[in-house]
């Protein structure tokens, strides 16, 4: 059953992008493409050949594969409710976070490899914003570790609602908010980045992959979808008491992923992207919310006394 997590990640990756797309189409009153259009796009890309820039070198060629490998490898650490992850050890979320950072490192230098000033700009923004985001995840995981007494994804999530303290719900909500926002920044969605923008100067992630084509571009898209699903599953894990039976968990998994995709789609339909120079503040706020989670746990543990 330990592979439930990774299967769930792939399932979520399969449905989330399509639902986001559908939500956006319906919200904007268009007929819009079908549910599986993102994967049809990927299959088209896979059939195509590739065009490489004369400037770029080997980094540009290997980076998309490395990026996807980091995401796939990170999926091994994600549990599914009480069913543990494939690989689990104490502090596996540290490895998870640094693995995602490794993928980002390669996508940044791949963008710089093209020598394009647009892509340099995107690379710089990606590096800058993700640097600011780094503490949020760690503060949140530290609060979880403190609340549950465990230090791996599997143990934390399977013990999350075992505590008798009902305030864990508040804590879970703060966690969901931080994970959701982290997912938005990591997968380059609104309000920090707009995947559908059409001007190079206003892009972050899209401008980094201007020169990718064919197979490489398919890998990059796939990586982004799976990454979003990773965070979707983390959010799912935060919401599910382990006492529920497997069919109930499965049903709630589907519901939560659909809700997540709906939320993302609605956010993208009804709000504009932040002004670029407002982004640092916005991202630091996510860390601020994680701090609140930490203070909540200090309060819950009644540690203010000693």
């Amino acid at each position: 059953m330990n592979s439930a997590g990774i299967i769930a990640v792939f399932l979520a990756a399969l449905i989330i992008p399509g639902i986001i797309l559908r939500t956006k189409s319906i919200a904007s009153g268009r007929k819009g493409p079908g549910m599986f259009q993102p994967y049809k796009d990927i299959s088209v890309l896979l059939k195509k050949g590739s065009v490489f820039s004369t400037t770029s070198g080997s980094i540009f060629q290997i980076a998309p594969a490395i990026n996807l490998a980091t995401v796939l490898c990170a999926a091994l650490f994600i549990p599914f409710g009480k069913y543990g992850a494939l690989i689990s050890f104490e502090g596996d979320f540290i490895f998870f976070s640094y693995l995602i950072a490794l993928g980002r490192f390669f996508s940044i230098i791949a963008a710089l490899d093209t020598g394009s000033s647009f892509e340099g700009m995107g690379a710089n923004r990606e590096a800058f914003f993700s640097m600011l985001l780094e503490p949020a995840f760690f503060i949140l995981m530290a609060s979880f570790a403190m609340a549950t007494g465990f230090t791996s994804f599997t143990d934390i999530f399977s013990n999350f609602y075992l505590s008798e303290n009902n305030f864990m719900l508040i804590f879970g909500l703060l966690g969901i908010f931080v994970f959701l926002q982290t997912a938005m920044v990591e997968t380059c969605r609104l309000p920090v980045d707009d995947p559908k923008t059409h001007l190079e100067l206003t892009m972050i992630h899209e401008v980094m992959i201007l020169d990718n084509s064919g197979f490489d571009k398919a890998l990059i898209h796939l990586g982004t979808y799976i990454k979003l699903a990773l965070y979707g599953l983390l959010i799912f894990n935060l919401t599910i008491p382990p006492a529920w039976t497997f069919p109930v968990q499965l049903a709630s998994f589907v519901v939560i992923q659909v809700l997540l995709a709906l939320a993302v789609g609605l956010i993208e339909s009804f709000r504009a992207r932040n002004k670029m120079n407002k982004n640092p503040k916005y991202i630091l706020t996510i860390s601020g919310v994680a701090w609140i989670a930490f203070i909540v746990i200090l309060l819950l543990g009644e540690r203010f006394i000693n």
Partner: protein
Amino acid sequence: MIPQAIFAICLFGLMTGIFLVTKKWKYYLTLVLVLAGVFLTSCWSFDLFSSLDQIQEIKIYPFGADSGLIFTIDRLSAFFIFVINLTVVTGILYAYGYLKPYLNSKSDIQLSIHYFSYLFLHYSMLMVVMLRDGLAFLIAWEIMAVSSFVLVIFDAEDKATLKTGIRYLVQMHIGMFFLLIAFLIAGRETGITGFDSLPAYFSTHPNFGLFLLFFIGFGIKAGFLFLHTWLPDAHPAAPSHVSGVMSGVMIKMGIYGILRVVFQLQNDFLSIGLTILIVSILSGILGVMMAIMQHDIKRLLAYHSIENIGIIGIGTGLGVIGLAVHNPFLIITGFGGGLLHVLNHSLFKSLLFFSAGAVYQATHTRNVEQMGGLLKKMPWSALFFLIGSLAICGLPPFNGFISEYLIYIGMFKSLPASSMYQAIILISTIVALSLIGGLAIFCFTKAFGIVFLGEARTQKAAEAKEAAFSTILPQFIPVLFIISIGLLSAWFARPVFSIVQQATFLPEAADLAAPVLKNLTGINLAGGIFIGLVVLLLLYRRQHLKNRPVACQPTWGCGYTAVTPRHQYTATSYVYNYNHLAKPLLHTRKIMAEIREDEIFPDKRTFVSHSEDIIKEYLTDKPANWGLSVLKRIAAMQTGKIQHYILYAFLFMLLVLILTYLKLL
């Protein structure tokens, strides 16, 4: 022990031989002597890890005398001996190719002095970690400072280099002064000078004051923030093999000293631990923040040394806090992570300096803005720099991650049982460490991207050629260790834990280390799976592209077709938005003339921006300049006229007379 004494004397004889042989043979003689030192010390420290609580003592009493040098090697010393030997050997192997261009331009005696100092630096560092007696230790410490000074001023024809060297020498002696006082204070109270006097002193006196003296003395060598002002100048000035050794191991001698003192502490653990931790966090964050602003590639690496010393210090500080709150797990992982990071940093930092040196020799510049596109011209150097960058950012599956993981896991596992204050300390450290990681990625994507990727920005970069095979080959040694620590972590972590066990007398250390070693196996497994995935994907990609049309075209220019390399993103533009945020801390200055309204056809303009190291400015530069200006004003008395000097003598006598009359003297 007599054969060893004879061996040592023979070594000294051979060392002077460096001055006598021809230019070509000087190198080989130095190499042989370095290897002899490596062989000897490795033999001495070899069986320390086989049995518990063993300490090796080697007494070198010349010609039947009843006193002399006593080398004491415990596991901590043995660990540092390993680190020293590894980097020094790599450095000397690298020097063969690196010094080749200098063979004609440098005179016989200059090369002799250089090799001789290199050898002395090696031997003195070995002695620093083996000597326990205060005076002998300080002499070895002094030899280390002077020989590294000589190595730094290899290019002394350049006045700036000489000035940097002298600044370095002065600051080393300030540090030495603190150490001397610390040893003397402990010696006066206990009757013995040296590290052996510390337990007796610490058990009867408050620890904090004496520790602070040691911390400043050793911290100047290590390059903790506020004590680092020599470091960003000295590393770029030195030739690259020397920078590699200095940054890789010599600054770690400061860490060794701090650890040696820390392991003797008897009380005041919490205040000492917090002091180390706070200074280290500041070093880590500000070190990397200042590194981002640097455009001189070796200066950038030098600032990263401050950052990494900060990470080592964070581990050490957590270990001391663990001692204070009796948390054995934090002790083991804190000290263990710090120590492993000493080894890790020595590996990736020397590798980075070596590959940066190759770039410098190929392009004749250290300014990253004048490089670009070197990946295609210097594939090996680029690969080494990339591996070094990934490792220094603490990314898996390389070695930097392992030591950072140890520090992290110690903190995370200590959180549930901690009180509020401890929890706040731990979470702040976690945040600091994660921020350092993020900033390091920002810095090294910039460094690697601007230096090696894109198009060559200048003619110099366009004409660059890969370094000679003899320069590339030695760099495989650190690469090998970087990868094996990343993938066979438990092998390296186990001895490190046993060092902490011996030094802190923790009986339960082995039990505590076992789950951590198990976690490391998990990390290695995941790292292996990751590498497997990458290889699979790349192989599939190759197969996939074989049957599809692949074309090469210019980079997408948004419709603009006359793109030149100057349109590329530069290092300055890369840090622009970061600079916006960090400006208050970094004192970035822009020098430019605004275009006036009446200028219809503006003249040629220049734009200069640079960031100052505020700490250096306010802690050393300004006081030093103030001292100079005061002295200059006093120099007005020095008129050169004999009458004036007689007047001064007369005035002085008058003063004495008056003071005596007033019974003030």
